[in-house]
């Protein structure tokens, strides 16, 4: 019994230990890595990615997958910029209205995702991938391939205004991570995600409306993608049809590295937070220690495998698909 507990605890804390080990490793090679200013840089890079990763965490916990994030982030970012400029171009003049608008659009994308998946009985993998393409296509259509810039200093304060050395957006993301944790642990919806992921048949037999839980999950994910879209605009001051590019790889990798099981029911928001930090620490650290860029992609791949090996409990899994 004691041994079991120890093993469970080890698995549980493994992602965090991996993160700490990486920080120690990079610091040992280049002490400049361990500086508040560098941590702020890592946090800025991680902020939008974390929102995407938290969104997809809910879906993965349900045992489904959502690959629409790139299209959803691009489309919400672009629409947010257009709405922001149309409403006056500054936060004070009415641009703030673009924020709820983007959240609604994100939710709608998620809703369509969920409906296509559940009502048309298309696997979530295919339904969401297709919706992602639709989102990117719509973003291309709206922008015509151009860049939309936002110059408002008040909105950009998310990046430029610092409290204790960290930009405002980092605090926003921390608050939202707690919100996501609250949804996960203290709402019926959050518990239902685990019920569906842990055993869909059982959840259904217990009277749970699995279809509704799935659709709601996709809506929630869509809202988080919209937040990521807006943070990306705050970070780069612009949106275009490729704003969401690369988020699929980063977010899914982070979720898995953090110890959330792709087969559902295991892991949660804090795993994802640690996973996103691991991936971003690796990305930043490889440049800081002076690793040549042609080695970096390969090294990232190896470190990801290593992190997954250390941080997921695969002992009771009979099949890995």
């Amino acid at each position, binding site marked *: 019994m004691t041994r079991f507990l120890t093993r469970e605890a080890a698995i549980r804390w493994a992602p965090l230990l991996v993160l700490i080990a990486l920080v120690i490793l990079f610091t040992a090679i280049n002490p400049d890595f361990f500086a508040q200013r560098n941590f702020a840089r890592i946090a800025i890079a991680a902020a939008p990615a974390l929102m995407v990763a938290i969104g997809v965490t809910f879906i993965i916990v349900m045992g489904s997958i959502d690959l629409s994030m790139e299209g959803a982030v691009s489309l919400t970012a672009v629409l947010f910029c257009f709405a922001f400029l149309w409403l006056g171009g500054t936060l004070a003049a009415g641009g703030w209205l673009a924020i709820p608008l983007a959240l609604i659009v994100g939710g709608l994308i998620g809703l369509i995702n969920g409906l296509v998946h559940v009502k048309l009985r298309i696997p979530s993998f295919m339904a969401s991938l297709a919706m992602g393409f639709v989102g990117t296509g719509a973003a291309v259509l709206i922008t015509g391939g151009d860049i939309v810039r936002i110059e408002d200093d008040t909105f950009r304060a998310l*990046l430029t205004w610092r409290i204790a050395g960290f930009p405002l957006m980092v605090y926003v993301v921390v608050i939202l991570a707690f919100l996501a944790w609250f949804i996960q642990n203290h709402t019926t919806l959050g518990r239902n995600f685990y019920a569906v992921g842990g055993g869909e048949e059982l959840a259904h037999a217990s009277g749970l409306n699995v279809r509704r839980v799935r659709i709601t999950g996709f809506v929630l994910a869509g809202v988080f993608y919209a937040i990521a879209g807006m943070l990306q605009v705050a970070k780069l001051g612009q949106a275009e049809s490729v704003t969401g590019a690369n988020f699929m790889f980063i977010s899914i990798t982070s979720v898995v590295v953090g110890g959330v099981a792709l087969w559902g029911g295991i892991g949660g928001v804090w795993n994802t937070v640690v996973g996103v930090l691991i991936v971003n620490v690796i990305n930043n650290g490889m440049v800081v220690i002076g690793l040549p860029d042609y080695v970096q992609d390969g090294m990232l791949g190896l470190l990801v495998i290593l992190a997954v090996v250390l941080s997921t409990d695969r002992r009771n899994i009979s099949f890995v698909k």
Partner: protein
Amino acid sequence: MSTFIKDFVEREKINRRNFLFASAAGLTATAVPGILGRGAAFADAGGWSLAWSYRDRASAYWNAIVSGGEAYVESLGLTKEDMTNLINEGSSEKSLADIKAFLAKNAGKGAIASDPNDSPNARPVVEAVRDAGGYVSTIWNKTDDLHPWDIGDNYVAHLSWSGEKPSEDAARLLFEKMGGEGGVVHLGGIPANIPAVERLNGLKNALKDFPNIELLDEQSADWDTNKAAELMSSYLTRYGDKIKGVHCANDNMAYGVIEALKAEGITGMPITAFDGNPEAVDLVMKGELLATVFTNPHWGGGIALALAHQAAIGAFKPSEEPNEHREFYGPSILVTQADAEEFKKTYLDATPTYDWTDRWGLSAGGIVYK
């Protein structure tokens, strides 16, 4: 009869006559395509159908290329819709399949401009066009051993842009702005991309004349704004205050660099870019960017299609042209704060009207192989 009524009757006669002319023309215009399928286009393009095969519409660059093609088509008295857009979405297979389908549909009478997507795909593309009896120009991608003069008149010309010299010019400007000393970092495109390699080489060429400038690091940010922002942040941790200037291989990455610096409260760092996109030119005007390089994709897109079409209708015979007219570099212009406003007025706010029969007017010379 009062003059008023006389005038009125006279005017009505003219209107009626105009109306009849107009209807006749309209009927022909609507009837002919009904019978012949693509009648209207056939009439003005000398029996040839025109197409541009390219990657996608998701960037200002390809939009400018396409606008050039459309401008050429319009110069023939046709409409934009008479140019077929063959979008390959970054797939060489689709690029080839689309071109074959287009030729089959038009019984080989196709004049095509194409970016074959990657170098090895250029040969199958030009051979497919030759075998069908069509005419093609390519831009950017072809292998060094493939030459229009070896394929024949059907492979009219290849157009590319050398990144080396303009990138070197931008680097020199950057080093002078840095006062000839200090550290510089480079953010490059996807490593194996020819433009990425050339633009880095340009920087290295300029370094030879500035012994006190140190190239601290050069890494790839995949032409991407977000990756560039993150790479620049990591550079700041590694090199800190040693960085006195930034050399970027394209505009999009420069936007990311500017934002990464803004996040740190760093202003006034000289940064150069490449592509001459409208946003970059605005940043040059504001002084946030030291310079960018404009390659006039509008002209490139127009002249590539014009060459294919003009060879098809026999306006010139490719085999009678010298090699530097069959493989040539497009133009490039270094845009700095001093001339940004003038540049914007000429090239971005308005589109210059080009004489498409002046086929090599803006050429920067024949392509040189190393």
